[in-house]
């Protein structure tokens, strides 16, 4: 819409001042307008336009202000739409009576005329009876500038905000004056804030007066908004240049010393590209020249089969060079001599060093602010990852901690939970309802699976822990393949309800997906629930007793078999619920559990076996560690995982019992 073209200040100054006057008039007028706007005529816009008919029908840059003045005076409802249509060449004039219409294409090369006041179709005529009004580029610019000020002073705040967004999208020097005027007339504080920002952005880029510009640049200091950063970066754009000496008035960003900041070969290539030095034949050029000059199996007196080293090739090339067939070789000394004649430097496109200094200064403090926010964002990511690890590992921590049973099928219980969620979603289309049903159902399904597994397999292997590991491997392999047979190999979706689909945008750098917040809350909920169960219930008491000394617990009337079974069921059930949560952020595949199992074990081992807080500490450490490593090498998640595993291997060297090591008899193996 506001397709503005770059203009020259001198040319613009005259109409701009007129425009300013108009805006002031208009602004003053709109304040009182609603009370007296009703004109007696039913076609106020047409009437106003007819009063300046010739200027509208064949517009020129000098006549646009008259039209605007007439429109302002009439203050008809469709004024803005008309101006836009006028600029877009969508207004037609009927040759017979000189009235203005909008038009729509009708069949048989006819046009449907639309009244500019009411918007109703009034007639269908041949296009021969109409003339399209075609303002030239200069006029359109004028109209668009007028439109900006019309929109910026529009009584409807939404329209004013929309106009500001348009300016922000395509900033232009022309907008400074109407925007300043509109800002002075503005009453809404929220919009004033936005206008001040935009003015800073525009001034920082386009203001002709250095003081204003530096003022605006200072105003952008520490602003992490992308548009502010873009403006500063644009101000600091550089171009690589060279000269025999730096011309006066050049705003030098930095000087490049050949051999240090720029390689000798590159520097020389710049010179030879500019025609200031003979081109240097590279290895390929030498080879091609030799290839082209083979005579009787020899080049320059060297037999072809000997040309397998660079020395031989250069020797042959020199022979050709002496015969005057090829361009001369350029030695390193030649390059040095040629390069020494010139200075290589980067120059700012902006000529004023005061401006670039201010911009660099502002950008530096912005960078500081950005690194702070990035750190905050990273911490949030790490927290989210930690809560996922915690959810995946806590079930394992319970079974491993209480029963010393390594359950390698734990990952498959996570997968089972996720598929339960998927199946529920295929049955119940409402995502919220299905999620509410899926969570307890997943718990129930995996609780049952855990109890069955404990009864059938694990119970018989309590004295042989390594073999539990193997047997549960077997179950894990079987379950994975079973899931593949039932659900296929492609990933199944588990869709979060709409209210969890968005992201919480803190600013341009930090945003958190709502689903991750939900998972964090869920992890927190599980932590509290487990602490409650273990510390405040009869079951928890019995579990702790069996953990510490199964024999003594049994002699006190606790049935260790029952406790083991329930504990295993609880751990598995939590895995199922974790599966639903993980399925919402990752894809549901038969292999999803296997992706988490090693990390879950790491979490448990690093945290310290047999402690809920240990698992929490382990998950936090691993989550933050992984994100921290990713920060150094953001493109490479695989590297982050590799280094994290290495770190854990080393960590166990120094704290073999984990962060939270149990003390006393319970710790003894």
């Amino acid at each position, binding site marked *: 819409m506001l397709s503005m073209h770059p203009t020259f200040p001198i040319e613009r100054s005259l109409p701009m001042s007129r425009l300013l006057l108009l805006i002031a008039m208009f602004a003053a007028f709109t304040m009182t307008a609603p009370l007296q706007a009703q004109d007696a005529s039913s076609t106020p816009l047409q009437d106003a336009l007819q009063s300046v008919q010739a200027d509208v029908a064949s517009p020129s840059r000098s006549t646009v202000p008259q039209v605007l003045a007439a429109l302002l005076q009439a203050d008809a409802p469709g004024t803005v739409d008309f101006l836009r249509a006028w600029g877009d060449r969508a207004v037609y004039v009927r040759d017979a009576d000189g009235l203005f219409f909008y038009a729509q294409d009708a069949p048989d090369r006819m046009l449907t005329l639309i009244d500019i006041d009411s918007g109703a179709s009034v007639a269908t005529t041949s296009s021969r009876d109409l003339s399209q009004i075609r303002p030239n580029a200069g006029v359109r610019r004028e109209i668009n500038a007028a439109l900006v000020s019309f929109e910026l002073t529009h009584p409807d705040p939404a329209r004013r905000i929309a106009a500001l967004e348009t300016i922000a999208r395509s900033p232009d020097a022309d907008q400074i004056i109407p925007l300043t005027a509109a800002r002075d007339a503005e009453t809404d504080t929220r919009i004033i804030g936005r206008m001040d920002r935009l003015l800073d952005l525009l001034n920082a880029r386009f203001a002709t007066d250095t003081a204003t510009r530096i003022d605006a640049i200072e105003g952008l200091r520490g602003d992490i908004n992308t548009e502010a950063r873009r403006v500063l970066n644009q101000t600091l754009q550089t171009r690589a240049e060279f000269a025999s000496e730096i011309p006066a008035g050049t705003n030098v960003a930095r000087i490049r010393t050949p051999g240090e900041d720029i390689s000798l070969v590159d520097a020389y290539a710049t010179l030879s590209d500019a025609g200031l030095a003979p081109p240097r034949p590279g*290895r390929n050029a030498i*080879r091609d020249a*030799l*290839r082209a000059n*083979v005579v009787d199996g020899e*080049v320059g007196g060297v037999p*072809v*089969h000997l*040309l*397998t*080293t*660079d020395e031989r*090739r250069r020797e042959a090339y020199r022979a050709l060079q002496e015969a005057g067939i090829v361009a001369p070789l350029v030695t390193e000394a030649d390059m040095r001599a040629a390069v020494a004649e010139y200075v290589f430097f980067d120059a700012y496109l902006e000529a004023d060093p005061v401006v670039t200094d201010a911009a660099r200064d502002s950008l530096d403090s912005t960078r500081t602010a950005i690194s702070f926010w990035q750190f905050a964002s990273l911490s949030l990511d790490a927290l989210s990852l930690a809560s996922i690890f915690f959810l995946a590992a806590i079930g394992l921590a319970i079974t491993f901690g209480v029963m010393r049973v*390594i359950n390698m099928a734990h990952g498959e219980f996570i997968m089972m939970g996720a598929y339960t969620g998927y199946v529920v979603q295929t049955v119940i289309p409402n995502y919220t309802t299905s999620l509410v049903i899926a969570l307890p159902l997943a718990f129930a399904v995996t609780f049952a699976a855990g109890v069955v597994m404990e009864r059938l*397999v694990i119970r*018989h*292997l309590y004295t042989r*822990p*390594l*073999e539990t*590991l*193997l*047997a549960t*491997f*077997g*179950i*894990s*392999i*079987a*379950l*994975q*393949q*079973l899931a*593949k*047979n039932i659900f296929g190999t492609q990933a199944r979706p588990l869709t979060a309800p709409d209210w969890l689909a968005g992201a919480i945008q803190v600013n341009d750098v930090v945003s958190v997906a709502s689903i991750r917040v939900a998972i964090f809350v869920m992890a927190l909920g599980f932590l509290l629930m487990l602490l409650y169960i273990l510390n405040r219930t009869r079951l928890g008491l019995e579990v702790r007793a069996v953990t510490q000394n199964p024999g003594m617990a049994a002699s006190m009337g606790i049935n260790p078999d029952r406790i083991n079974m329930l504990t295993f069921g609880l751990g598995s059930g939590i895995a199922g619920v974790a599966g639903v949560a993980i399925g919402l952020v990752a894809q549901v595949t038969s292999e999803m559990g*296997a992706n988490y199992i*090693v990390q879950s*074990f*790491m979490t448990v*081992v690093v945290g310290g076996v047999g402690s809920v807080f240990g698992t929490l500490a382990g998950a936090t450490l691993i989550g933050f560690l992984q994100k921290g490593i990713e920060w150094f090498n953001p493109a*490479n998640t*695989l*590297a982050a*995982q*590799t280094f994290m*595993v*290495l770190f*854990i*291997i*080393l960590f*166990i*060297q120094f704290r*073999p019992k984990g962060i939270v090591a149990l003390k006393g008899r319970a710790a003894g*193996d």
Partner: protein
Amino acid sequence: MPFDIPRTTATPAASKRSFLHENPSVLWFMGLLGVFTLGVTILSEGFGIGLISTNLVKILGMTLCLCLIAIAMDVVWGYCGILSLGHFAFFGLGGYAIGMWLMYARTEINIRDSLGRGTIPPTELEVSEAVAAQIFGVVGSSDLPLIWTFAHSLTFQLAMIVLVPGLLALIFGWLAFRSRVTGVYLSILTQAMTLALSLYLFQNDTGLRGNNGLSGLQNIPGALHVPQSVISMWFFWASAFALGAGYLLFAWVVAGKFGSVIRAIRDNEARVRFLGYNVEGYKLFVFTITAVVSGIAGALYYPQAGIINPAEIAPIASIYLAVWVAIGGRGRLYGAVIGAAFVSLLSSWLTGGGAPNIDLGFYRIVWTDWWLVLLGLGFVAVTLFFPKGIGGLFDYLVRKKP
């Protein structure tokens, strides 16, 4: 590279008589392996009447390599009690070490061939740049990574087959055993090591072509015009020889006093330590030597498979290795061989479409889908009911005799 025909049946030396007398299974094994090798040679396409296809020879040769790593696994787990989930990583490293030479040398031959057709011969630099561009084009690079510096040298890469897995096992084992990591913790830790290694290899910028892996390994530089039917037999013999030598080595290691000590470590580590033995030293030796043998097995396996990629090293592969040994029977070397051969051949028969699908009327059992379920459940059953595995049957039969 020509191989000598392995003399697997003619190994006994005079000084080893007493050892062989005490371990009759070694002689039996050598005999059977010799007969098997001879039989396959006679039936092969390359040297015999052609009843066995080249493809099958390759599968049998690869199975022999798997048997070799299974023996190594049996020594470290069945005899020494360390459930390592990292031996397949050593296997893969051996494969990568030889694969680098195979790939580099073959590409170099091709490049020299094509550049040599030009009007002037290439320089060494041009050749190595072209080779690098050819090998690493798939990962968007054209520089030769540092670890490929000596890839042109067969001697160097052969040394790497032994040194890389050996050193990795030595360092990892030293760290782990020193801090008294045992039991399930150690298993998890070795699994983590395997995971870290495979994740590392999956990256494109680590210089081993990321998930593309190394390919075309079945073409042996220097023997590019020898048909695959002959090359497959060379590797089959080499694998059989390696298996025989490995069996002999480990039978000798686990016999005698050393064997008694490592079995004692398996059964009660603390008591052995109290008796004054350097438990960590024994464990480290066993862990390292089995890793070296695994590397050698891998170096023989992958030229027959033709391709190696990081997925081969993934933790699940090492788990399958434990499954084979458990099914075959821990604590007896022939058990490991039986387990590896039985399960891997059954697996390739069932998943390769060789086995007929079973129609139950209401459901059709497709073996490619159900094989892993069967394996998993079978494995659970073996763990629960037959801890001695298939090898246990032999004990039963031998004891039956008067």
